[in-house]
Every structure is written in structure tokens, then in C-alpha cells.
């Protein structure tokens, strides 16, 4: 079992988070280095996620490392019934670290228990996706100059959206004030509100997205997916109400930045893209530097 794995954002202390963000800034200044020369990183994608896989693979290649792996479980030995335990043991014979995405929740924690090399969780079902959380934080830090005392507005699917749950956990070190804006069906689950109360984090809740984020520093949008709704009429209504339009930004703070884990569907109108407050494309690019920082930390090559 390797102690260096990154499975859940809660595996990292406040200091470790800050050091990753610091390291990402260094990689942004100088992304091409040969610190992983001779290292082999496996990317095991038991379910496809081109965006995340390309980001990790580019991070490794820009550091001089090599990639092995698969991008779809159908082409892997697990489709022949091999257990995850056996796949991990087999791959760890070849690779110095494993980046893994798996459709089952807890798969990454289990892999980290049986693996002799570090595991980096690139998403386990609806559970955790720590590199996304860290790149969100890096984007917040870059655009606001600080992580402390920010007003953060989380919008959309707050029930199933794992990125917002992890963001609450990770931001809890920095005295944020949250506003949760979600339709009734997709409200923030109680366990995260209890978490906020326990940690002295202020939050309010609203059910409509209007211009009600004028004191916000960060507007974090998430995808509202049709399959989350039992009542399709309700989905159609919500879909129209939960679309961010450029006009809504009129009275927002000048430092407001809009984040979105991407891909988006209809929740951000394309006319927002030209606003200087739209930050979601740069946010995706920040993922590269964060993943360079993560892979380097996991392999002690900082």
C-alpha cells in the first residue's frame, strides 16, 4: 500500500493544498520540465473521460514522463472479468504511479489499499474527483488573489454534483460564505449543511437564479442534467430558469468570476463567454498545471 495516493480531497491538509497550488503556479510559469524523465505513469480509465485523461496525460508528457494504459474498460482485461485488485497489481509491475477513473464509488480508495504504487483518483463514480477540486481552488486563488473570506455562490445541481461537495470541504479552511442556489429537487444535501454548521461556515439557500449573486466573488455553475428529474416538465422549467445570461451580470462585483467544471449544456448562455467575468475555459487550462503538481507530489519529484 502506498501512502502517497490522492483519493479524496480530505486526504490533504490545508498546508498540502496550499503547497499544491503554489507548485501549480510554478508549473504555469514553466510547464515544460524533465522532472519525470524515465517515469512511467499508467492512466486506467474504466469509463471514458477524454477531457480528464488528456489533461493528465499532457501533464505527464510535459514533465518528460511516459504514459501507458487504456481509455475504456471495454479494451481492458477487466472486461474479461479480472478483479480490480488483479488489474492494479498487474499494472503496478510496469508503472510508477496510476491515474484511475472508475464508475464505482470507492474504487480508488480500494485501489490505493492494494496498490504498491501511488493511486491518483481521477473520479470514482459520484464520489470524489480531487484534481477537479484543486483546479477549482487554483482558479479561485488566481482570480481573487486569495482564498480567504470569499463569497462563493454555488448554482445548479447541488444534490448530485460532487464537485460542489468537494469544494465546500476544501474551502472550509478559508472562512468562505456560501450561497446555495438550486431547484427544490437538487438542493444541497443535509450532510453538507451539517458540515458547514460544524465548521462555522455561513451559508444561505435560494431556489431561483436571478441576479441574486451581486455580493459574490465566485459564481460556480454546475450542469443540471435531465436524468436527475422524475418529472420532465419540471426539468424543462428548471432548465430555463437556471440559465445564466449576460444581463444578469450587470450589477455583479467587478472581481466576480464564473466557474464551471465543463462540459456545460444550457446553464451558461454562450453570450456570457465574451464577458471578462467568464473564466471557465481558463479554469480548464489550469487543470494541466494542477495535475502536473499532483503527479509531481505523488512521485516526490517536486
Amino acid at each position, binding site marked *: 500500500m502506498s501512502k502517497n495516493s490522492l483519493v*479524496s480531497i480530505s486526504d490533504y491538509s490545508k498546508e498540502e493544498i496550499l503547497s499544491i497550488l503554489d507548485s501549480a503556479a510554478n508549473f504555469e510559469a514553466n510547464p515544460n520540465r524533465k522532472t519525470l524523465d524515465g517515469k512511467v505513469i499508467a492512466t486506467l480509465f474504466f469509463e471514458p473521460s477524454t477531457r480528464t485523461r488528456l489533461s493528465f496525460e499532457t501533464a505527464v508528457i510535459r514533465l518528460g514522463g511516459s504514459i501507458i494504459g487504456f481509455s475504456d474498460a471495454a479494451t481492458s482485461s477487466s472486461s474479461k472479468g479480472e*478483479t*480490480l*485488485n488483479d488489474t492494479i497489481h498487474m499494472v503496478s509491475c510496469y508503472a510508477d504511479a496510476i491515474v484511475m477513473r*472508475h*464508475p*464505482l*464509488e*470507492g*474504487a480508488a*480508495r*480500494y485501489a490505493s489499499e492494494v496498490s504498491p504504487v501511488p493511486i491518483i483518483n481521477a473520479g*470514482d*463514480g*459520484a*464520489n*470524489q474527483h480531487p484534481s477537479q477540486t484543486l483546479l477549482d481552488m487554483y482558479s479561485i486563488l488566481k482570480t481573487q488573489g486569495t482564498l480567504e473570506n470569499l463569497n462563493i455562490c454555488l448554482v445548479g445541481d447541488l444534490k448530485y454534483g460532487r464537485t460542489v461537495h468537494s469544494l465546500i470541504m476544501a474551502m472550509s479552511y478559508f472562512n468562505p460564505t456560501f450561497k446555495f442556489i438550486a431547484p427544490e429537487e437538487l438542493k444541497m444535501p443535509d*450532510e453538507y449543511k*451539517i458540515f458547514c454548521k460544524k465548521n462555522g461556515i455561513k451559508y444561505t439557500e435560494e431556489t431561483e437564479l436571478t441576479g441574486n449573486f451581486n455580493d459574490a466573488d465566485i459564481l460556480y455553475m454546475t450542469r443540471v442534467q435531465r436524468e436527475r428529474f422524475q418529472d420532465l416538465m419540471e426539468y424543462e422549467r428548471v432548465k430555463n430558469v437556471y440559465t445564466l445570461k449576460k444581463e444578469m451580470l450587470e450589477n455583479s462585483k467587478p472581481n466576480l468570476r464564473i466557474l464551471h467544471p465543463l462540459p456545460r449544456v444550457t446553464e451558461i448562455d454562450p453570450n456570457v463567454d465574451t464577458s471578462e467575468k467568464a473564466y471557465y475555459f481558463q479554469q480548464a487550462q489550469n487543470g494541466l498545471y494542477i495535475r502536473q503538481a499532483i503527479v509531481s507530489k505523488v512521485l516526490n519529484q517536486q
Partner: protein
Amino acid sequence: MEKKLKVAALRDGTVIDHIPSDKLFKVVQILHLDTCDNQITLANNLESKKIGSKGLVKIADRALEEDETNKIALIAPNAKINIIKDFEVVEKRPLILPEEIREIVQCGNPNCITNHQPVTTRFKVMKNEEELMLKCIYCEREVKRDQAKIR
């Protein structure tokens, strides 16, 4: 009188008393008594002033270990454990819910790795606003202690 006799009839071993009647066979299961070769006496639906109806387990010639009896704490927290030697109670053992519960609880999340691969389940015991919760260390979902599914 009757009850005293039953306990006294055991020379050496373990007596587990005050098990809620509907939990007796879960206790049997958790302690793997079905594969234990010692002499075992089970009684159920006995009258109890405290809990109405109770079950009782006596295991001859075997003093259960603490980590075994603590497994019972999850489903029968008020059960009484007595270790008997030479017809005497030599130890009244308090039940302590362990910090981590292995194997005996099944994760309620159908999408959890433990429900798909040969993985021993592990749950962290946590307190959430005075309520005891079990958190799956794999999928990180929480369940209330009294809603935990026993395998």
C-alpha cells in the same frame, strides 16, 4: 430463580444476555456461532422486564475475545456479556462500539465498490449531531447506525 439456574448451569464460557429477540440470530451470525463446535445454548422470546422480550446465548468453554463481543455493540448495544469460570462470573464486560467496523455491515450504496468486488467492508463510526453514523471508508456515504444493513 429460573434465570439464575440457566446461567449457573454453565461451568466455563460466555453468556450473552439481554439481546433484543429480533437480534438474537444476527448475534449468532456475527459471532459465526453456526460454525463453532462448542456446546451452545440459545434461548429466545424470554420475558424481560427491561426490554419486553429477549434472547440469550451461552457458549461453553470459550471466553469470547473483546473484539468479538464488541461486534455485538452495533446491533445490541445493551446486551450484557458475562464471562464465566467455575460457575462464577469473572468478568462483566462492557460493550464498546469500535471506531471501525469491519465485514459485518453491508454498504447501502448499490454503486459502491464493496458491492461489486471481493472487498471486506469497513465503516468508520462517527457522531453527527448526537446521532451515531457509519461512514463507508470506500464510497464515503454515511448511514445511521440503526439503518445499517447487517450482512
